[in-house]
């Protein structure tokens, strides 16, 4: 299987979830899987120093003026507001430019599957639609608010803004259907599944260990394995629209 991991950042240095694409890339390479990684140019120097033997499997999209402008403007906004506005715009723009690189990889290396491990936020749209290959997104983990002890780090204005902006993500996911058309959405838990955008198939309340049988959605439901974690696919009248797998 030939996998293309797509990410904005894949970095140890940046911290947080940006390290996840790098972990997947390294772990799968260590296990002999054919994997390529597409990321933004800002992580090129770090990755090429960290994994020099994998240089030919890494592709980077250039840092453009629009990235720099959005980054500078976001400095004037509270962190959470910046993340969900200008940060999101920057992410979408990066993903848009990555589409061209992904197409080249599909053409030149016969990529079978695209995997987008980050961002882990379940509501963020994805630009990787219509590329002719199954897209796997996740594992996602979200639907959380700041714990009480950290509420002070999140201003009232930010909380109000984020609450107001959440419905807009449904519109964004309508316009950019990457998540709705993804082959598989991996979610960490039912809490995350509950905040997936509208129109996205949700996993049933049962765990992935159950045997084949109709799920609560009344759709055909298939567990590929017994007694182990497995993929659950939801069918519909017109065919499988997508699948969610609750890890």
């Amino acid at each position, binding site marked *: *299987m030939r*996998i293309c991991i797509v990410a904005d950042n894949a970095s*140890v240095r940046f*911290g*947080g*979830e940006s*390290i*996840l694409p790098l*972990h*997947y890339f*390294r*772990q*799968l390479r*260590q*296990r002999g*899987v054919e994997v390529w990684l597409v990321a933004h140019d800002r992580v090129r120097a770090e990755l090429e120093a960290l994994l020099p033997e994998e240089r030919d499997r890494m592709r980077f999209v250039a840092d453009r003026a629009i990235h720099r402008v959005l980054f500078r403007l976001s400095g004037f906004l509270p962190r959470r507001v910046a993340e969900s506005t200008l940060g999101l715009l920057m992410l979408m723009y990066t993903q848009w430019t990555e589409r061209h690189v992904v197409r080249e990889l599909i053409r030149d290396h016969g990529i*079978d*599957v695209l995997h987008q*491990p980050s961002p882990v936020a379940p509501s963020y749209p994805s630009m990787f639609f219509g590329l002719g*290959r*199954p897209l*796997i997104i*996740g*594992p996602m*983990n979200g639907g*959380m608010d700041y714990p009480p002890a950290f509420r002070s780090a999140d201003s009232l204005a930010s909380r109000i803004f984020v609450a107001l902006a959440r419905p807009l993500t449904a519109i964004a996911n309508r316009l950019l259907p990457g998540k709705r058309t993804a*082959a*598989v959405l*991996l979610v*960490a*838990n039912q809490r995350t599944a509950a905040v997936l955008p509208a129109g996205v198939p949700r996993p049933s309340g049962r765990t992935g260990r159950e045997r084949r049988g109709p799920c609560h959605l009344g759709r*055909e439901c*298939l567990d*590929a*394995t*017994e007694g*182990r*974690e*497995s*993929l659950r*696919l939801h*069918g519909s009248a017109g*065919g*499988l629209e*997508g*699948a969610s*797998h609750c*890890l």
Partner: protein
Amino acid sequence: MTCSEFLAELDDLIDDSVTPTLRADLELHLRECEHCVITLNTTRKTIEIYRQHELTSCPPRCESACRLPSWRSANTAANQSSLSRIANPCRRCACLSV
């Protein structure tokens, strides 16, 4: 240990190649941080899913009707005969249960 420090060690933890001292620190962090527990578990399971499934081709009779490849679980004898489609199923043959 912070979450970023924990995440930096995730690779080694999954590979079980951490020192006993570091492992103790990581486990201490896991006891206090639900988010990192989730990240560790889901990363492990996702890699396992990739390892347990391999791409298979659809039977020739339905190749033209199938747009996307399917995955086959490759671990057990029972699973050898179990095909599961990742995305659009073949509408002409029984790809889901070949």
